[in-house]
C-alpha cells in the first residue's frame, strides 16, 4: 500500500468496518495471531511504520511528527468514513496523537498499553528505559510469562532477528529523547472526542497499569480495562482476550 509516496508493508485481514492497527515497539510478525483475531470485527489494515519491519524509511523521516502525518494520510486513503484506530504500545502513542489532533474519519480509539505521556516527577521514569537497562530486566518487565513469549534469539531465524534489530533501531530513532513521550500530549489528550478504550496488561512493568489509569483519566469518557495474564504485549500473550475486548467495545 502506498501512502504519501511511501510504500508501506501492510498486513490486511477481514471485512467490514475499517480498523487501522498500529504496532508497538516491534512490528507485527507476518504470522501474528492478533491481527487475524481482530479481523473478526472488521477490515484490519496493519502497516509497518517506516523503519519498522519491511517498510523502508524515507530520507529524513525520523520524527513522531512524520508518523502522525503518515497515519493521518493513511486514514484519508481508507474507504468509508468511520475508522477505528487501534494502537499498541508505541503505536498507541501515535494513535493518541492522531486522535488528540482529530481526524474527520476517526470514529473510535483503542489504546493498548500505550506510551507517550509523562506523569511522575522529574526524577522518576514512567516508562522503563529499554535502551538503558539490562536486557534481562527489560524482558522480565515486558511479559507476564517471559520464558514462553519473549523473543529467543537462539531459536529465531536470521530474517526474524534482522527484523527485530530494524524495529529496535527505528524505535530508538523516534523515541530516544524525551524517552517515548511527548511532554505536551497530556495537555491535549482532553481534546479526544471519540469513544476510547484503554486496555492494559495487568503484569505490564514497562508501563504499569497505574500509568494506564492516569492515561485513561486524561481522555474524556475513556474506559480502562485490565487484561489478565499479560504484560506489555497483550496482543502476544492474550490475543483472544484482547480481540474479544475490542470486539465488545466496537459492538457497543
Amino acid at each position, binding site marked *: 500500500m502506498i501512502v504519501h509516496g511511501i510504500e508501506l508493508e501492510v498486513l490486511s485481514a477481514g471485512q467490514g468496518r475499517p480498523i487501522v492497527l498500529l504496532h508497538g515497539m516491534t512490528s507485527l510478525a507476518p504470522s501474528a495471531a492478533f491481527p487475524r483475531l481482530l479481523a473478526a470485527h472488521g477490515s484490519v489494515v496493519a502497516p509497518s511504520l517506516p523503519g519498522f519491519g519491511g517498510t523502508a524509511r524515507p530520507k*529524513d523521516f*525520523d520524527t513522531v511528527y512524520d508518523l502522525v502525518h503518515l497515519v493521518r494520510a493513511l486514514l484519508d486513503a481508507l474507504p468509508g468514513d468511520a475508522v477505528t484506530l487501534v494502537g499498541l504500545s508505541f503505536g498507541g502513542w501515535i494513535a493518541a496523537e492522531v486522535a488528540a489532533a482529530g481526524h474527520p474519519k476517526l470514529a473510535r480509539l483503542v489504546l493498548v498499553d500505550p506510551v507517550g505521556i509523562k506523569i511522575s516527577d522529574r526524577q522518576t521514569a514512567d516508562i522503563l528505559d*529499554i*535502551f*538503558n*537497562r*539490562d*536486557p534481562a530486566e*527489560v524482558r522480565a518487565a515486558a511479559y507476564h510469562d517471559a520464558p514462553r513469549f519473549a523473543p529467543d*534469539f*537462539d531459536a*529465531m531465524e*536470521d530474517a526474524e*532477528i*534482522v*527484523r*527485530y*534489530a*530494524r524495529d*529496535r*533501531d527505528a*524505535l*530508538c*530513532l523516534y523515541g*530516544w*529523547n524525551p524517552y517515548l513521550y511527548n511532554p505536551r500530549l497530556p495537555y491535549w489528550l482532553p481534546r479526544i472526542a471519540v469513544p476510547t478504550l484503554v486496555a492494559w496488561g495487568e503484569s505490564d512493568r514497562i508501563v504499569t497499569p497505574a500509568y494506564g489509569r492516569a492515561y485513561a483519566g486524561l481522555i474524556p469518557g475513556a474506559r480502562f480495562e485490565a487484561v489478565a495474564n499479560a504484560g506489555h504485549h497483550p496482543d502476544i500473550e492474550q490475543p483472544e482476550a484482547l480481540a474479544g475486548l475490542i470486539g465488545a467495545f466496537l459492538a457497543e
Partner: protein
Amino acid sequence: MQLWFHNENTYPFVPKEITDAATSVRASLPGHLLDPRIAADLFHECMDESLLCDDVGINIVSIEHHSGINSLYGASPIILGALARQTRNVRILSQGTLISLRHDPVRVAEEYATADVMLRGRLDIGFVKSGDSEMASNNANPVGNLERFWEAIDLIAAALKHTDGPMRWEGKHYTHRHINLWPRPYQQPHPPMWAATGDPETSRELGLRGMVNSVVLRGIDGTKRAWGAYRAARAEAGLPEPALDRFAYAAFVYVGDTDEEGVEVGSKLLWFLNTRLKQAPQFSKFLPGRMPPEMAPQVYRTGPRPGETRVARPADGLIGMTAEQAIQRQIMFAGNPDTVFRQIMAAYDTLGGFGHLIFIGRSGYLTHKEAEKGIRLLAKEVLPRVREATRG
C-alpha cells in the same frame, strides 16, 4: 614524524571484585567509589607528564571520554585550557571532542578558538565518533550519530572560518541564529582537523576532506583498511595523493632500559583494554544504530550456529590480550630503546609510512614515575632515530 603522548587519566583503584561484578565499568560505577583526593593527585601527575612532554619535544593529545575508571577526562575543554596555559612548545591535539554527543557545536568551536589563541596556534582539532555507553552518558541518540558527526564538523569549520560578522546555521540537527566567534582562531582559516576512526567508510570521507586519519589500536590490518579507503577515495575523486602527515598510528608504547623492563612495565598499559572495554549488553551488542541490522543474527545470539563464524566488533578481540600478543599484533611497542625503534619502524614500513605516532604511555597501574621514565627514554633514545630514519 611527529610523536604524540596520549594518556586517558585512568582511575584503576576500584576493587576488582566490584569491577568484575559490574556489567559496565565505563558508564555505571557509582561515584562514591572515587576518592577525590586520589583523583586530584592523578590530574596533577598527568598534567606533569604532559609538561615533561612539552620539555622533551613530544606533542600532547588531550582526550575526552565518558565516564568512569577508564578515563577521568570527561570535561575535555578544561584540560585543554590548562594545557594551553601550561605548555610552551609542543602542539596539542584535542582528540577529541565526542562531537556528535555535544549538543552545541558552536560552543565547541568557541572553546577551540579560545584554546588556539591561548596556544598561539599550537592546536590541532580531532573529532571522535563515540558510541556504546557514551551515548547513554551523554543522552545522545545512537541512531543518526554519524549524520550529526559530519554536520557538527561542518558547522565548527564554518564557524571557525567565518570572520565577517554574524553567521546563521539552519541544518538538520543544529540551528543557530547568531554565530560570531570572538576570539577567532589563531590559525587561519582554522586549526588542522583530525578524526579517529578505523571504519573505512568514515576514512573515505576523511580522505575527501583531507583531514588527518588517526587509527587507534586497530593493528596493522585494520589500519591498512582505513588508510586504503582514505587513499582510494581521493584517487577516485581525482584529488592529489595524501602526504604521510595525513595518517596517525596509535599504539601502547613503553621504553625501558632493558627489554624485560619495557615489556614488564609496558604490559601494565593493557589494563586499559581489559577494563575499559567491558560494557553492558544494552550499551554494546543491543545498542541501536551500532551496526547494520543484517549483522544482528550473529551478534544477538548467545553463540554461533553450527558452521558459523562469529563476527566481533574490533574491541572484542582486544579484551584479555597479553603483552606478547599485543606486541605481535603491533598495537604495542615495548622493550629497550633498540627494540622499540625496530618495532616502530617495522609498523611504519608495513603500513607504507605515517606522519604521526600517538603513544599511549600511561594507563591503569603504571605509575607516574614509570610513565615519566618511559617518556624520557622515548624522547632521548628513540625519537631522534625514528626522525632520522623517516626523514624525507
